[in-house]
């Protein structure tokens, strides 16, 4: 199997990697680049734990081939914090107990940031529909929705 050279920008840094034609972007991020924030839950695009943005669109990285990322801009949860300063979404999730086991959390943070970039003041319904592709089996969602609302409010007043 011939590996494919791929040039991308990940969290603002130019990154080049080699990957097999059958490797997903999730596998490249985790196994080749050490970016283990994105998680494999289902591997079939149902759970959202592997959410990243590719060229500004929220996607499941398990449903993207690594080779497809050529020339693309990728953002992962590792790019959310500014140095040691957590993103308001990350801080709100901690402060308001919006996570328990944490497996779904990176995907939900990336998805929520993607929503707030597009719509800084979403309604509860808009948040629930936007995050419908991010499954959480611990918290029951209410605390997640609340944390997104609190972070959104904080970001609007910042």
């Amino acid at each position, binding site marked *: 199997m011939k590996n494919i050279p791929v040039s991308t920008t990940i969290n603002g840094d130019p990154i080049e990697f080699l990957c*097999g034609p*059958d*490797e997903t972007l999730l596998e490249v991020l985790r196994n*080749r680049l050490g970016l283990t924030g994105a998680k494999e839950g289902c591997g079939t695009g149902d759970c959202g734990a592997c*959410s990243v943005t590719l060229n500004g669109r929220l996607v499941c990285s398990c449903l993207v081939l690594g080779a497809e990322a050529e020339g693309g801009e990728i953002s992962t949860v590792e790019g959310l914090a500014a140095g040691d300063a957590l993103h308001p979404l990350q801080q709100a999730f901690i402060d308001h107990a919006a996570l328990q086991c944490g497996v779904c959390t990176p995907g939900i943070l990336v*998805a929520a940031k993607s929503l707030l970039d597009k719509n800084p003041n979403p309604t509860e319904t808009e948040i629930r529909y936007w995050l419908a592709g991010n499954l959480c089996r611990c918290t029951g969602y209410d605390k997640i929705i609340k944390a997104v609302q609190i972070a959104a409010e904080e970001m609007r007043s910042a």
Partner: protein
Amino acid sequence: MSLKITGIGLVNMQYARPETAAEASKLLAEARGATRVLAGGTDVLVQLKAGMVEPDLIVDIKKIDGIRSITQEDGGYRVGAAVSGAELGEHAGVVALWPGVVEGFELIGSTQVQGRATMAGNLCNGSPAADSVPGMVAAQAIARIQGPAGTRDCPVADIPVSPGKISLAKGEIITSIFLPARPNHASDAYLRFIPRTEMDIAVASAAVSLVLDGAGVCTSARVALGAVAPTVVLVRGAADCLVGTKLEDSALAALSDACSAACNPIDDKRGTVEFRTQVAGVLAKRAARIAYDRAGGR
């Protein structure tokens, strides 16, 4: 420590990213063994993971010139085969002209899936429950197809053959879908039934496209049903029930009966034959009312 490299496990699979549709078609035509066209990947990658197909060649069509754009043409819109649901939903022109087509496509999957999924892919996946297909059939959408011998246009209605089977020949790919112009006082709508509010596959669905005259009388109609037959079905008899009416109760009752009569559904855990047959008629009736209101009827 060495990193564990996984991959789906298809060690002999080739990945190609041609820059023209002719080149893509040639690669697919000349390939031996199984092939898959990759646009949004939301069905193809799931099939690969599940081992449903082990392709020797994947042809990624997203670098083909124009395949990710929406362009105006003859008063309608040509939607490139790699345009995602998110991109289509943000296009004010398409949303205004064909709201029923857009709402059908936008019902598919999550935000993440909408970031990648394409109408052409939904069509080529060949599911009778494909949410974007009834709207395209009702809209008389036309697929432009590139094949080894050149391009041809084919009504979307003639693409599905049976569950998972489509009428494209080896080496053929859809490069765009054309949503035609429509007169004033015209609109469309799509409704589906699912047992929850989001992220599910249609148990039954209906798309209705209407043209009215200035007085609100329906002058032409197209009705298409999903998930109630081996393919999405165009129900001409149901459309005939609406022409010449202002969608009075009697016309809508006749529409509903004609739709139910056209159903030939499967019986499974998500819906019985009786349920799907009845619900398809009810959805058609409700979609017709929405399309009528959108078209400015009263």
